[in-house]
C-alpha cells in the first residue's frame, strides 16, 4: 500500500502585495511529494475555507505579511468551526511578531514559521502533524 498522498492548501489571505515566500513553500512541498493547492494572492477567509473543503486538504498553510494575522487566522478558524471542518490543521508563515505567537497558538494555529525557516523543517513538520 503506497503512502497516502498529502494534499496541502497554501493560501494568502488579505492584501499582501507579493507571494514569493508562499511560492517557495509550495514548491518545497511539491518536491517532497505532496499535492499543493495554490490559490494565489488576496484570498478571503471564506474562499480559503471553501477551497479547503472542496479540495479535502490535510492541512492549510497561510502566508501573511500584512500584519493582519491575528484577525485573519481567527476568522479562518471560526469559519472552519462553522463548517464542522475544525479537524483541518492550520499553520502559518510570513511576518508575525514573536509576541503574537502565543495568541495565535491559543486560538488553534498549530505553528508559525518565521523568516529564514528551512523548507525541510516545514516539510518534516507537516508530515509529522498529518500523520495522525
Amino acid at each position, binding site marked *: 500500500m503506497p503512502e497516502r498522498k498529502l494534499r496541502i492548501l497554501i493560501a494568502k489571505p488579505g492584501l499582501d502585495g507579493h507571494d514569493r515566500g508562499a511560492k517557495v513553500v509550495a514548491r518545497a512541498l511539491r518536491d517532497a511529494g505532496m499535492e499543493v493547492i495554490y490559490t494565489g494572492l488576496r484570498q478571503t477567509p471564506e474562499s480559503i475555507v471553501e*477551497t479547503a473543503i472542496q479540495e479535502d486538504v490535510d492541512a492549510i498553510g497561510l502566508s501573511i505579511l500584512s500584519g493582519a494575522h491575528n484577525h485573519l487566522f481567527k476568522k479562518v478558524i471560526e469559519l472552519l468551526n462553522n463548517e464542522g471542518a475544525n479537524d483541518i490543521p492550520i499553520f502559518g508563515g510570513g511576518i508575525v511578531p514573536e509576541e503574537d505567537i502565543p495568541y495565535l497558538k491559543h486560538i488553534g494555529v498549530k505553528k508559525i514559521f518565521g523568516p529564514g525557516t528551512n523548507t525541510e523543517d516545514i516539510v518534516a513538520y507537516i508530515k509529522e502533524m498529518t500523520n495522525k
Partner: protein
Amino acid sequence: MISSIDELIQKMISGDKRALGKIITLMEENSSSSAYIISQIYALTGKAYIVGITGPPGSGKSSIVDKLVSCYRNENLKVGVIAIDPTSPFTGGAILGDRIRMKSHYTDRDVFIRSMATRGNLGGLSRATSDAIKALDAFGSDIIIVETVGAGQIEVDIVKVADTVIVISVPGMGDIIQTLKAGIMEIGDIFAVNKADLDGVEKCILEIKMMLELSENKNGWIHPIVKTFGNRDDGANELYEAIKNHRKYLLESGHHEKKKIMRGKADLINILQNLFIKNLYDVISEEEMEEFGKKIANREKDPYEIIEEIIPRLKKFL
C-alpha cells in the same frame, strides 16, 4: 469526525460539500473504495452534462472554464469543475493551480471545484477522474466541466468522458502541419481560438477550417470555431451557445446514445487496465521489477523473455 463510507455517501447525495470532497479523496487513494462508492451511487448518475476542455499549457483553459461557469450560473445551474494538473514523475508531488483563474466562483454555494493531479496516468486525465465525475453527478451537478492537463498531441482521453469536447488553440503555435496531425485536433466538437486579440488569429482559424474541410464529416455536425479572450466575456458567450447547440445536435441526431455506449466501453477498459497494473504490482514487487530492469539493461534477458516468465504468475487474476 471519521464517518463511515456509507454515511459519507448519504451526506454527499444530500448535498454536503465536505462529504463530496472526502469521497473524491477516497476514490483517488484506492480503487476498491471507488468500486464500492460507485456501486452505491451508480443509479443516481448519468444526469449531468459533461463538457471537456483541452489545449496546450498556457492556452487559457482555466480562464475559459471560469467564464463558462459564469454562463451556467446565470442560468442557475449547479456546476462541478474538475481541473487536472500534472504530477511530477520524479517526486510524485504536484502544484495544483488551476483554481487561481476561477476565483470569482470560490464562495458560490452551487459551484464545486476540485483539482486533481495525474498521479502517473497518461492521456491527460487521472485514474480517478471518471469516478470523480460520477460523484459530482450523484451530488446533483447539472453541468460538469473537466479541464485536462496542458495537452500535447496525444492527451486525448477527455473524449472518453465528455459529451462535448472543446479544443483550445492559441495563435502562433505552429503551421498547418500541426492541425493535420492525428491526435488532439481530431477530438474537438468545438474549437476555440483563445487570446484572439493576438496577431495571427485569422491564420489560426483558417488552418483549423482547412483541417476540418479535409476531414470527412460523417455525422453532419459542423464544428464551430469560436474566438475567445481571457479578459473579455463576448467570446465566452458564443462558446457557451456553441456547447448548447452541440448538446441539441447530440440529442436530436441520436449520437448521444452512441457516445454513452462508447463511454461505457472506455470506462470498462480503463478500469480493467488499472486493475491489471495494480495486480501486477501485487504479484511483482518494486524490487523485483528493478531486478528485471537490470537484466534487460545488461542484455542478460530481453523484455519479451521476462514477460514469458511473468505471465504464468498473473494467471490467477485472469
